[in-house]
C-alpha cells in the first residue's frame, strides 16, 4: 500500500474535482439508501392497507429520487475520469521527465520494452485505482455503513445476521488478496519480457530476416507467451474462486433474512414492508461488497504497478546537479583531465586509468587507439554523461561536477557514434539543440555540414519528414544532418565521435573541409580515423587499454613513441610512408 499511498497523494492536484466527485457519490448513496425506504412505505402504507394515494406519493418519490441520482451519478463519473486521467497524465509526465535526467549508466541497462510497460499498462492500472477505485471504495464503505445503520433502526436481530455474513466476506476477501499480489507481479514481469522480445524484433528486423531466423524468433516469442499464459491462468484460478464465493455469501444473507425475518414477521415482530426493505438493503450491501472485491483485486495489481512506477521515479541519477551547483559562465574551452579513472559500473574493470592531460582553448585533440581502449569514455566524461570514478575533469578550471548540467552541455557540441534522427522534419532535426533557430541559421549549418545539397533535392527540402529511425536517409546523409545539428549549437567545445566514418570518400572529403573551418577557435576532440586528423592535431592522445600511453603532436610522437609509429603503420599502412615523405 505504500506505493499506492504515494500515488493517491497525486489527488491533491485535483482537490476540488475530487471533493466534487466525492460529494456527488455521497448524494448518490443517500438517494440509493432512500429507495428501499420509499418501497417500504409503498408496501406498508399503500398496498398492504389498500391506500392508493400513498402508492401515488411513493411512486412519484421513487422517480424523483432516480432523476436526482442520475444527475449526480453522471457528475461523479465524469469528474472521476477527469481525476483518473489527470493522475495518469501527471505520472506519465513525471516518468518521462525522470527518464530525461537519468544518466547514461541507467539507459545502458534499461530495456525499452520494460519502460514502455511502466508508462502504459502500469500507469493505467494505477490511474484506474486512484481516479475511480479509491472513490468507489470510499463510497462503498459509506453505503455499507449507512445501510447497516438503517437496518439497525429497523430490526437489530436481523441486522446481526447480515453483519455476520459481512464479516465472513471480509475474511475471505483478505485471504485471497494476499495470495494474489505476488502472482500478479509475476504476470506483469512476464508481460514486460514479452514486450521486450517484440521490441527487439522490430528494431532488429533486418538481422532477423538476414539470418532467416523468423521461426526461431517466433519460437522464442511463443515460449515467453506460453509462460505468460501459464502465470495468467494461475491468477485467473484465484480470481474465479473469489467472486462467486463472495456472491454466494451475499446470497446467504438473503436466505438468513427470509428465514429469520419470516419467523419474526409471523410473530408480528416485523412488518412485511420492513422484511422487503431488508432484502433490498441486502442488495445494497452486495453491491459495495462486489465493488470491494473488484477494487481489491484492482488494488493489489495497482499496488504492484505503483511499486514499479515509483521504482523508476525513485532511481537516483548518479549524474545530477549538486545543490550548490553554479552556472558555468561562457568558457574559453580549456580542458584538463586530472588523474581520471573511470569504470562504467561498480565492480567493473577500469576503462580509464589515471588519465592526465591538458587541452588548451582552440586546440584540436585527436584521440587514437583501438576498439575498447577508452576513447569513447574520455569523450563521455566531458559533457558529464558519466561521472569519473576518481580524479577530476576541469573546464576552464571548473570541475564539471560543480556546475549545472544545462550550462555545461549547452557549451559542448557532440556528434555521437550512432546517428539518431527523430521523427519530424529535417529542419527540426538540425535545430534539435536550438529549436528557436531561424531557417537561415539552419541552412547555414546544413551548408557547412555539406548536407544542403541533398536536402534541397528531397521532395520537401528542409520540411521533409524523416522517419522514426531516420529511414529514408542513407547513413552518410543522416550523419551530415547530425553534424549540422552540432554546428548549429555553435559550441565552444566540439566532440566528434567517429563522426565521418560512414560517409564515402567524396562526402568525407567535403566534410573534412567544412570541419577544418568549424574547429577553428574551438577546442575539438576528435576520435581519429584519419591520418589527416592525426597529422593536423595540436595534441594527440594515444590510448591503450585505458591508459594514456603517449601524448604530443605528430612530429613529437613520431620521434618519441614507438607505439605511435606502429599504430600508424597498422592503421594507415603504406600511406604513412607517404606522409613522412611529404614531411621531409
Amino acid at each position, binding site marked *: 500500500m505504500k506505493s499506492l499511498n504515494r500515488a493517491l497523494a497525486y489527488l491533491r492536484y485535483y482537490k476540488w474535482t475530487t471533493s466534487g466527485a466525492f460529494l456527488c457519490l455521497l448524494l448518490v448513496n443517500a438517494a440509493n439508501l432512500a429507495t428501499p425506504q420509499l418501497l417500504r412505505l409503498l408496501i406498508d402504507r399503500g398496498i398492504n392497507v389498500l391506500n392508493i394515494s400513498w402508492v401515488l406519493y411513493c411512486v412519484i418519490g*421513487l422517480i424523483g429520487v432516480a*432523476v436526482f441520482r*442520475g444527475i449526480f*451519478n*453522471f457528475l461523479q*463519473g465524469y469528474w472521476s475520469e477527469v481525476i483518473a*486521467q489527470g493522475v495518469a*497524465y501527471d505520472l*506519465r509526465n513525471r516518468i518521462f521527465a525522470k527518464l*530525461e*535526467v537519468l544518466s547514461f549508466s541507467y*539507459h545502458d541497462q*534499461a530495456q525499452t520494452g520494460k*519502460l*514502455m510497460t511502466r*508508462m*502504459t499498462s502500469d500507469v493505467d492500472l494505477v490511474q484506474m485505482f486512484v481516479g475511480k477505485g479509491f472513490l468507489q471504495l470510499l463510497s462503498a464503505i459509506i453505503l455499507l455503513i449507512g445501510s447497516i445503520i438503517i437496518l439497525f433502526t429497523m430490526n437489530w436481530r436481523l441486522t446481526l445476521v447480515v453483519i455476520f455474513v459481512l464479516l465472513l466476506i471480509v475474511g475471505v476477501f483478505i485471504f485471497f488478496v494476499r495470495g494474489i499480489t505476488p502472482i500478479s507481479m509475476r504476470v506483469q514481469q512476464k508481460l514486460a519480457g514479452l514486450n521486450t522480445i517484440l*521490441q527487439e524484433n*522490430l*528494431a532488429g528486423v*533486418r538481422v532477423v530476416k538476414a*539470418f*532467416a*531466423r523468423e521461426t526461431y524468433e*517466433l519460437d522464442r516469442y511463443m515460449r515467453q507467451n506460453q509462460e505468460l*499464459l501459464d502465470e*495468467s*491462468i494461475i491468477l485467473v484460478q484465484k*480470481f*474465479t474462486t473469489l467472486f*462467486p464465493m463472495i456472491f454466494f455469501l451475499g*446470497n446467504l444473507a*438473503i436466505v438468513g433474512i427470509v428465514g429469520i425475518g*419470516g419467523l419474526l414477521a409471523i410473530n408480528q415482530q416485523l412488518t412485511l414492508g420492513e422484511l422487503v426493505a431488508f*432484502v*433490498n438493503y441486502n442488495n445494497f450491501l452486495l453491491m459495495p461488497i462486489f465493488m470491494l472485491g473488484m477494487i481489491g483485486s484492482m488494488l493489489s495489481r495497482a499496488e504492484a504497478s505503483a511499486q514499479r512506477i515509483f521504482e523508476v521515479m525513485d532511481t537516483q541519477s548518479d549524474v545530477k546537479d549538486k545543490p550548490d551547483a553554479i552556472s558555468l559562465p561562457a568558457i574559453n574551452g580549456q580542458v584538463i583531465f586530472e588523474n581520471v579513472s573511470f569504470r562504467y559500473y561498480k565492480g567493473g*574493470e577500469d576503462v580509464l586509468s589515471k588519465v592526465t592531460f591538458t587541452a588548451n582553448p582552440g586546440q584540436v585533440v585527436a584521440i587514437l587507439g583501438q576498439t575498447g581502449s577508452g576513447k569513447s569514455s574520455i569523450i563521455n566524461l566531458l559533457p558529464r*554523461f558519466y561521472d569519473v570514478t576518481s580524479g577530476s575533469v576541469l573546464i576552464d578550471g571548473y570541475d564539471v561536477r560543480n556546475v549545472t548540467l*544545462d550550462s555545461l552541455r*549547452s557549451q559542448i557540441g557532440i556528434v*555521437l557514434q550512432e546517428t539518431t534522427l527523430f*521523427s519530424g522534419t529535417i529542419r527540426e532535426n538540425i535545430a*534539435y539543440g536550438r529549436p528557436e533557430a531561424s531557417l537561415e541559421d539552419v541552412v547555414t549549418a546544413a551548408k557547412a555540414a555539406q548536407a544542403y545539397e541533398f536536402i534541397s533535392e528531397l521532395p520537401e527540402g528542409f520540411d521533409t519528414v524523416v522517419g522514426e529511425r531516420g529511414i529514408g536517409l*542513407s*547513413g*552518410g*546523409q543522416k550523419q551530415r544532418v547530425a553534424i549540422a*545539428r552540432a554546428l548549429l549549437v555553435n559550441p565552444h567545445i566540439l566532440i566528434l565521435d*567517429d563522426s565521418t*566514418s*560512414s*560517409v*564515402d*570518400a*567524396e*562526402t568525407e*572529403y567535403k566534410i573534412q573541409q567544412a570541419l577544418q573551418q568549424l574547429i577553428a577557435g574551438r577546442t575539438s576532440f576528435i576520435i581519429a580515423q584519419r591520418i589527416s586528423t592525426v597529422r*593536423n592535431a595540436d595534441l594527440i592522445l594515444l590510448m591503450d587499454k585505458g591508459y594514456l600511453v603517449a601524448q604530443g603532436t605528430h612530429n613529437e610522437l613520431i620521434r618519441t613513441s614507438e607505439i605511435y609509429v606502429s599504430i600508424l603503420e*597498422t592503421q594507415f*599502412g603504406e600511406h604513412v610512408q607517404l606522409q613522412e615523405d611529404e614531411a621531409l
Partner: protein
Amino acid sequence: MMHGGGMQRIAETSEERAQNRGRVLSRLLYYLHPYRKAIIVALILTLISSATQAVGPMLIGWAIDDIINKGDIARLGMIVLFLFIAYLINMFAMRYQIYLMSWSGQRLLADLRNLIMAHIHKLSLQYLERKEAGDLMSRVMNDVDVINSFITQGMAQLIGGFFALIGLVIAMLGMDWRLALSVLIIIPFMLLTTNFFAITARRAYRKTRTTIGDVSAELQEELGGIKVAQAFNRGDLNTRRFMERNAANRDANVNANAVTSAFMPAMDVLSTIDMAIVAGYGGYLAVNGWISVGVVVAFIQYAQNFFRPIQMITQMWTIAQSALAAAERIFDLLDVVPDIQDAPDAVELPRVKGDVCFDGVCFGYIPNQPVICGLDLCVPTGATLAIVGPTGAGKSTLVSLLMRFYEVGAGTSESDGGRITIDGYDIRKVTQHSLRSQMAIVLQEPFLFSGTVMNNIRYSRLDASEAEVEAAAQAANAHDFIVRLPQGYQTQVGERGTMLSQGQRQLISIARAVLADPRILILDEATASVDTRTEALIQKALNQLLKGRTSFVIAHRLSTVRNADLVIVVNDGSIVERGTHTELLAKGGLYADLYNRQFYVPVK
C-alpha cells in the same frame, strides 16, 4: 419527410457499420473456435447460474404470501432450504463458468499475440521500416489486452445477461402477465438509448486508441535517442512535447468517458421509472384485490433484478465496442498482404556454389521512381565483388535486392523488372528461408539482441557448440575483448547492446557472420564503425573468410577494396565503371578520382 434523406444516410452508414462489426465479430469467433467446448460448457453453466439467481425473488414472493396468509413455519423452512440450495448451485456454476471463460480468453489472447508476431515476420522490410514501430507495439500491447478483457469479463456476462433476461421474462409471465408487460414496456426505450450511446462511445474510444498510440510512439522514439536528447539539453523541451501528446490522450479519454458516464445514469432513471410503474400499477391491482401483495413484492424484486442483466449487457456492450474497435485494428494488421512471399511453387534452393547474376534488374522504393534500372552484373563462384560509389548511389539497395529484402522489379512500370539468379535459380522462385540461410550479411549498424554474447554470436547457427562460437569470435578478432568482459561469453548485453562500443558490437556481428559459414557473404560497410587498426585486423580475418565464397563488399574505404576480384562503381543506380582496382585506377575515371581524394591531406 423533411429529414428523410438525412435519416436514410444515417441508416445506411449504421448498417454498413453493423455489417463491418459483424465481420469483425465472426472473425473473432473463428479464433475462439478451438475453445468452443469450454465456451459451450461455460454457457450452460451461465444458464444454470442465471436460472438459480432468477428463482430467488419467486421463492421470496411465495415466502411472503405464506407468512401472511398461513403463518406456516414448516413451509417457510422448505422455501428457505430451496433458496439455500439454489444459491449454492449458483456459486459453483458461476465459479466454473468464469474460470472456463477466462481460460479461453487468455488462450485466445496468447494465440492472437502469436499470430501477430508470426505475421510481423512475414511482412517485408519495406513495410516494417515505414510503419512506426511504436504503433505496431501499441497495437499488440493494448488492442490484444482490450479484447482479452472483453472475453474474460464481458462475453460470459453478456450472454449470461441474455439468459437471465429470458429467465426473468418467463418467470414474470408465469406469475402475472399484466405486471410482466408493465415491466417489459420500457425495453424499447432502453434499446434506443443504448444504441445511441454505443455508437457515440465507439467513436470516442477509437480516438483514445489513436492517442495512446501516439504517446507510445513518442516514448519509444525518445528512449531510442535519449543520449542525443541529453547531449543537446533537450530534456525540458522534449518533456513539454511529450506532455502535449499526453494531454491529447487525457482529453480523448475524458471525452470518451463522459459518454459512458452519462449512459449508466440514463439507464438508471429509465429503470427506476419502470419500477415506479410496476409499483403504482401493482399497487392499484392489489388495492382492488386482483392480485396478492406477495406478487407485487415479487415484481418489485423482478423489476430491480431485471435491470441488472440489462445494465450488465449494456455495460459490457461498451467494452465490446472497444474490443471490436481493437479487433478491427488487429485484423487490419493481419490482413496486410506481405509484398514478398514465397511463390506457391517455390522450391528449396539446394546448397549453392555461389554463381550470382543480376540480369536487367530494375527497382524503385516508390512506384514509378526507379532507383536502379537495367542493371547487369555477374559474379562468378568464389569471387569478391567490391561496390563503391557516392552516398545514395544505390549500393545498399543492390545487396538488399540480392537478399530479397526488396523485390526485384518493384516500383517500376517496366513489364520486365529483370531477375537475380544464383546458380541459375531465380531468387523469387525459391523459398526465402533456403535463400537467406546460405547468405550472411554484416550491416553497417550492428544489432545485438538482449542475452549473452554467446547467444548473440550463435544467432546465425543455433546448433553451434561453444568451441565453434569461440573459434568464430577468434576469426573475427572479437575473442580478446570478449574474454575481458565481466562474464566473458556469458556477459549479458542490453537490448541496445550499449555496454559495448559500436566497434565491439560490430566485431560480435562479424563473428556471427563467420559462424554462419555462408556461401555468399555480404559486407555492407561492415567496418565503417570500427577503428582503422581493428579494421586492419578484421580485414585479415575476412580475407580468410572470403576465400571460396562469393562476396559482396560495400566499402567506403578504398583501401579495403583493393584486393577484390572485381570492382564496380555505382552512381545514380547504374554501374558507371567496372574492372579491377589497378585497371580502374589507370582509367582515371570516377574511381581514380574518389581514390585520390580520400588520401588528400588538407594542409593547415
